[in-house]
């Protein structure tokens, strides 16, 4: 008999064979293993057919390679099968619900992928004469215009390659602006709930990081913040909505205070999805904010990149933006590539060439698809979904902060106290239930944090089943008296829990042939 989600129902306690016997091959039906690529090569095979090289006298300066590299030789179908098998050992947003807080795992539309590969877009060289890439420059320019309108900011630096790279861009612009005024400032204020990249970025810009505590309601402590301001403060780095999933409702005061002290306001835009079309950073007093195109604007996460992190800038910081950028004039579009002329105050260059064009194409396709109405609906549905989960779970999981949340719902582990089951155990049990776990133990300010970000892509049915699953797991933890059920999870994934301590103690970071090392 099947229950309503297609699972075999079995009376509680009726047993059943949970320990599956080993197979001869190590495979389990559709769960197929594949050795390392290096263990599959046979000299003489090849996965590409190449023409014969022209006969010439080499001009390698006498430095031709002599020894073997050690790469394995495989045929095309072998390589294909290897990676298909590998892919099946991954969870993905296409396959299931991925409520990973702070990461905005939304649907990745395929028209975006198609556009990124179109002739004249995916195959053009960054150093072609400008006259041959007017369409590409127009596209970058148009995306910049959309970003400026959506954020209400006057300028945008397109080249940063990811969120943390965007932070670096914004904070460098702050420092360049202070130096242009002849000011030496040494401290940056960062709330204790911030992403780790914020303090790491500030440090790379030569600043001392001064941590600001949170209030009981999960927002930055305004009084503590004000007390820390001074002539040595370069600015504040604040995530809004913050990492607790809450809107910093004092944001305008924070902006006014930091400006009055001569500092700048960097906003970490990782959570911009929550406020699209509902408010604009330009109306909140922000001087710089990066936008993760791979979060808010749906470019795929790709197993950890590539990202893209354009940074919108206020009038005060715009002159210090990095090169290159696209300029539109009577003759069409051109690139300002060097620190000179209008860009004389630019703090420099952050990246080879012009930015993550492949991501720009996808993000613009996404924006065009949604339009003004769809962008606003994104934020509304994302926030609606998070609150629906918050309310659906708040009687079984404790919410450390009262009231409505933005795009993500934050829970702590207080209702798991004395059960022997931790946040990590719940997460691993979620894997067996077919979910990617939520973000765990972040933000650091909440004990055993579970940060759930459903995004706008999910149906009500998905959210209801998720709520039901979480309630079931928490209930099992509290009444089941069986912590081992959780400690041994996950059971059904391609691998059980992995020895991460062992991996760090004696790092094996590459394959090596038998008998070496």
């Amino acid at each position, binding site marked *: 008999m099947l229950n309503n989600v297609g699972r075999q129902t079995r009376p509680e306690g009726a047993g059943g064979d949970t320990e599956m016997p080993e197979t001869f091959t190590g495979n389990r039906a559709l769960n197929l293993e594949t050795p*390392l690529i290096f263990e599959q090569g046979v000299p003489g095979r090849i996965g590409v057919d190449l023409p014969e090289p022209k006969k010439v006298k080499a001009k390698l300066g006498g430095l031709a390679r002599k020894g073997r590299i050690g790469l394995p030789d495989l045929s095309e179908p072998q390589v294909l099968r290897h990676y298909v098998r590998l892919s099946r050992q991954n969870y993905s947003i296409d396959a299931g619900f991925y409520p990973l807080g702070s990461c905005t795992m939304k649907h990745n539309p395929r028209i975006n992928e198609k556009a990124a590969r179109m002739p004249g877009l995916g195959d053009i060289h960054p150093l072609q004469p400008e006259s041959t890439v007017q369409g590409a420059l127009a596209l970058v320019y148009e995306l910049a215009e959309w970003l400026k309108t959506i954020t209400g900011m006057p300028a945008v630096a397109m080249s940063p390659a990811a969120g943390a790279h965007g932070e670096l861009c914004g904070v460098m612009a702050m420092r360049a602006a202070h130096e242009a005024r002849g000011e030496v400032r040494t401290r940056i204020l960062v709330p204790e709930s911030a992403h*780790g990249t914020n303090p790491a970025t500030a440090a790379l810009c030569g600043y001392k990081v001064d941590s600001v505590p949170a209030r009981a309601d999960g927002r930055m402590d305004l009084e503590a913040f004000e007390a820390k301001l001074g002539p040595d403060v370069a600015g504040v780095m604040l995530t809004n909505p913050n990492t607790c999933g809450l809107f910093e409702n004092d*944001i305008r005061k924070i902006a006014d205070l930091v400006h009055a002290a001569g500092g700048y306001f960097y906003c970490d835009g990782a959570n911009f999805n929550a406020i699209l079309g509902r408010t604009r950073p330009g109306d909140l007093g922000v001087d710089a904010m990066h936008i993760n195109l791979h979060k808010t604007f749906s470019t795929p996460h790709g197993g950890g990149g590539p990202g893209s992190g354009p940074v919108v800038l206020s009038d005060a910081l715009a002159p210090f933006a990095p090169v290159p950028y696209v300029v539109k004039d009577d003759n069409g579009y051109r690139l300002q590539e060097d620190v000179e002329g209008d860009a004389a105050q630019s703090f420099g260059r952050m990246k080879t060439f012009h930015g993550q064009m492949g991501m720009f194409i996808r993000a613009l396709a996404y924006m065009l698809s949604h339009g003004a109405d769809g962008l606003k609906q994104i934020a509304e549905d994302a926030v609606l979904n998070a609150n629906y989960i918050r309310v659906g779970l708040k009687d079984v999981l404790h919410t450390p902060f009262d009231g409505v949340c933005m795009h993500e719902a934050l829970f702590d582990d207080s209702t798991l106290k004395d059960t022997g089951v931790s946040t990590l155990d719940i997460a691993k049990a979620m894997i067996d239930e077919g979910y990617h776990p939520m973000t765990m133990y972040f933000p650091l300010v909440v004990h055993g944090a579970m940060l759930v970000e459903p995004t706008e892509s999910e149906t009500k049915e998905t959210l209801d089943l998720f709520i039901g699953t979480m309630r079931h797991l928490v209930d099992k933890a509290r009444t089941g008296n069986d912590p081992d059920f959780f400690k041994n999870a996950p059971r059904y994934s391609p691998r059980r829990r992995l020895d991460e301590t062992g991996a760090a103690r004696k790092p094996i970071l590459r394959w090596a042939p038998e008998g070496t090392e």
Partner: protein
Amino acid sequence: MRYLPHTDDERRAMLEAIGVGSVDDLFTDIPEEARLNGLLDLPGHATEMEVDARMRAFGAENLSPAAAPSFLGAGAYRHHVPSVVDHLIQRSEFLTAYTPYQPEISQGTLQALFEFQTQVAMITGMDVANASMYDGATSCAEAVLMACRVTRRKHAILSGNLHPHYRDVTRTTLQYTEFSVEETDVDPQGKTDIPEIGKDIACVVVQNPDFFGRIQDLTALAERCHEAGALLVVVVTEVVSLGAMMSPGEMGADIVVGEGQSIGVPLSFGGPYVGLLATRQKFVRQMPGRLCGETVDQEGKRGFVLTLSTREQHIRREKATSNICTNAGLCSLAFSIHMSLLGEAGFTKLAEINHAAAVAAAEEIDGIEGVSVLNDSFFNEFTVALPVPAEKVVSQLADQGILGGVPVSRLVPSQKDLENLLLVTVTETNSSDDVAKLVAALKEVI
């Protein structure tokens, strides 16, 4: 809207469950004066067909190198990417997965990264490599920071014949740190002349083949670095060269950084690409970026995890080795798949084809009156001295539908003495016919 599943009835039911009257009640934390009433001043949503047409129109305004004889390089190279590569990286499980923080359900990404790290270590002749950086130039900046940490010294020497963007990015990245760089002269004629390496120098950074395409034996320079207690950082912007040349590791490099775009990654107008960073085992704990390591699971099966994360920002915060969070995941996968298809035989042969095609083309170009090839050694890119400014020539060639190369002045605009120099790249994608067209057009415009 096709991406948003809720019906209005469902939205109402959910608002009721939450206990609020309208969606506006969920946004009351936004200060009233900053709330946006109405819609942004942007067009409304568009159908997929409309978006398709719009994006195609942008593409139609560009001259695709696939439709023109193309000889562009200078840090980004056009190579044939086997169809398998793009097919595989578009599999949902690779494309739409997050960073593999939950190893039990991310073994696909993790094993692929472990294989990528191994391939990069092998071709560079180093012990270990990380799971990739944003691109070659940011890898270069990170390598200099790493060398400063390893040696506890504060200055770096950058060769003037290092790609100008790499020098710019390194200078920009270091400008607000306690570290500094000095740069030697740009010299298309000579060998990189590194001055005395003082006791305050953390590393010397050189590119091989250099920006002008010249290949050098760096063994003696490595020895000089090591005698002075400094590291040698070798930059490779065209990784295919490693299939033909002695590896930087064999020459004594301590850190090798590179741009991996040539293998598996489309030109895409400059990004996203994939930065490579490889080094010696003893420096592992000072490396930036993600690392994947081998371990075992509860049942003793081999598996992979992200490791040594105590170097990284999410644990170490302001004391991290780098602020980097994202890597170039999907591009590193594309690199790895392409490299797996090539294998030892294919990778070395691909390099041979590139070199031979470039040698043949260089001979023809050198035969044009008033034109000479400067290099006595090169891989697939060389420097051509023209009797007139290269930018003008390139523009005239573009009018004829030929992408004839990269004028050195595009990247080094400040040096008038280099304005007649043109960088020309020839890869396996260039036919003899392409070269003939370039030669004929050059004869005509000069």
